[in-house]
């Protein structure tokens, strides 16, 4: 990786200046305070709609609602204990067919999402699967989420466990990918239009403008941006550093358990080919997945030949090809949200493996998924001079023959 590549993937956070925000009292908790504020934005018509997770009527899960009636906001839960659907996917579904500009006055929508969901939305926008023009991304300091399977066993107990762990900043009950997450806070400008700073809040929460549009929202709400956030920024930086170390350590351990053909096949041996990981992945947007296409449905002769060559052939075949191939298709945009692992009925650590692959591959190509809107996707751009280690040098030993022939 050249120096320019390294410079490209670093220096984003340093460049942004998060000086101050607007403090909101939060005696009844962060969620209640944020919901109250969102209600005001709807009442004042600053936003025409709010996209926010709301507990489902049955009380055992959460779903994003595109809310236009402020009354329904009472049930909203901006920081739910689980992530049943990745918000990036929701934003893509909402905005894929346009940016709302067709209306006389473009509708302004606030999307309250976790940082990984906002990053997925950014990647989807780059992949032409979402339009973020009239969408205000409101990110929240994220404590992680519980594994879906843990939560649905007893939703009430899960919610209590989540609240306690979040208050203590304890990530151990969270999903493995959340435990090693190092992008849990505000995203570099201009991605987080507004960010809700809850860490280091001591009874208040702060709304931080990240983009000019976000600042304008606070202006329209008559909310002066005057609370200093140095304490919060220092806290976030320290936590990010600790989490990055934790991530590297987790990845090093993970590599020991997956590296090599035998261990890799052991990890994926219990796969039941349900392709849930692909269905829930925000980045896997293809209408026709290659791995469900006719390219992998072959005539019996093919299977017979492969069985002969290998002695036997597991059915359904191409399990490893599905996982490695899917990785090749999406790891450069992978935001390590862990939705795939949540959806796996066999508890395969697919989210952890993909986060390892993603970090290494993105480092190779000098890219960080979801960090910048103006940076091209790594496979649609190139530099003339780069990646020399990939090219196989033409070695002189095979030239002797050439000399003799001549």
């Amino acid at each position, binding site marked *: 990786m050249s120096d320019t590549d390294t410079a490209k993937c670093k220096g984003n956070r340093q460049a942004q200046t998060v000086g101050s925000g607007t403090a909101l009292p939060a005696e009844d908790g962060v969620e209640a305070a944020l919901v109250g504020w969102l209600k005001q934005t709807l009442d004042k018509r600053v936003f025409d709609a709010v996209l926010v997770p709301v507990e489902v009527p049955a009380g055992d899960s959460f779903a994003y609602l595109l809310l236009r009636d402020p009354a329904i906001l009472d049930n909203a839960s901006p920081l739910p204990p689980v992530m049943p659907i990745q918000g990036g996917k929701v934003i893509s579904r909402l905005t894929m067919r346009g940016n709302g500009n067709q209306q006389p006055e473009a509708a302004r929508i606030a999307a309250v999402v976790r940082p990984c969901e906002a990053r997925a939305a950014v990647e989807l926008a780059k992949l032409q699967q979402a339009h973020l023009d009239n969408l205000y991304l409101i990110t929240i300091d994220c404590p992680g989420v519980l594994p879906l399977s843990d939560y649905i066993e007893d939703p009430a107990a899960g919610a209590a466990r989540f609240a306690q762990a979040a208050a203590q900043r304890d990530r151990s009950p969270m999903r493995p990918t959340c435990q090693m997450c190092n992008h849990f806070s505000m995203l570099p400008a201009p991605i987080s239009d507004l960010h809700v700073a809850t860490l280091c809040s001591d009874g208040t929460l702060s709304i931080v403008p990240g983009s000019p549009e976000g600042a304008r929202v606070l202006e329209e709400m008559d909310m002066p941006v005057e609370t200093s956030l140095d304490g919060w920024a220092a806290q976030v930086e320290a936590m990010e550093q600790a989490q990055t170390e934790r991530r590297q350590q987790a990845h090093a351990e993970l590599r020991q358990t997956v590296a090599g053909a035998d261990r890799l096949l052991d990890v994926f041996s219990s796969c039941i080919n349900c392709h849930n990981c692909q269905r829930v992945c925000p980045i896997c947007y293809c209408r026709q997945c290659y791995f469900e296409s006719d390219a992998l449905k072959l005539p019996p002769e093919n299977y017979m030949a492969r069985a002969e060559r290998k002695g036997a052939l597991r059915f359904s075949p191409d399990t490893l090809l599905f996982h*490695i191939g899917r990785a090749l298709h999406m790891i450069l945009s992978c935001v390590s949200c862990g939705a795939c692992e949540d959806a796996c009925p066999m508890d395969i650590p697919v989210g952890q493996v993909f986060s390892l692959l993603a970090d290494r591959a993105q480092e190779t190509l000098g890219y960080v998924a979801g960090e910048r809107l103006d940076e091209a996707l790594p496979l649609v751009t190139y530099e003339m001079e780069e990646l020399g280690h990939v090219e196989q040098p033409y070695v002189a030993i095979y030239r002797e023959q050439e000399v003799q022939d001549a």
Partner: protein
Amino acid sequence: MSEERSFEPKIIYFMCSWCGSGGSETAAAHHLQYPENVIPSRVNCTGALPAVHIVRPLIEGADGVVISGCHPGDCHYNDGNFRARRRVALVKSLLDTLGLESERVWFRYVAHGEGRRFVDTAAEFNDHIKKLGPNPLKTRSDT
């Protein structure tokens, strides 16, 4: 040594329509030979070669994959070889991380006139894979 002699690797040689295949034509014109276990496969441009097609043969029975396109600046489509280089870097990064021997994938430019270089690449890669030994994935039935 005897093992090395008895092991005949299966090698897929992806070459682009313009320079890689041109190199093989030049080799043919000069009656240059390359190992018979190297299976040539023409793609229109190495930049159009999906990453999955590099990995798929490695899982299903090939011992190595070698990819040849035009030299930098010579691509028939201007920048296909640069794009291919990025994609090969992606594949190699993934294989490295998973401990799947990224040296089983080679990427080397071969120009239209470089028949000798084409033949050398095939022979050198063949020897290289013989030294590496059989691909552990190709005998696994549970892929």
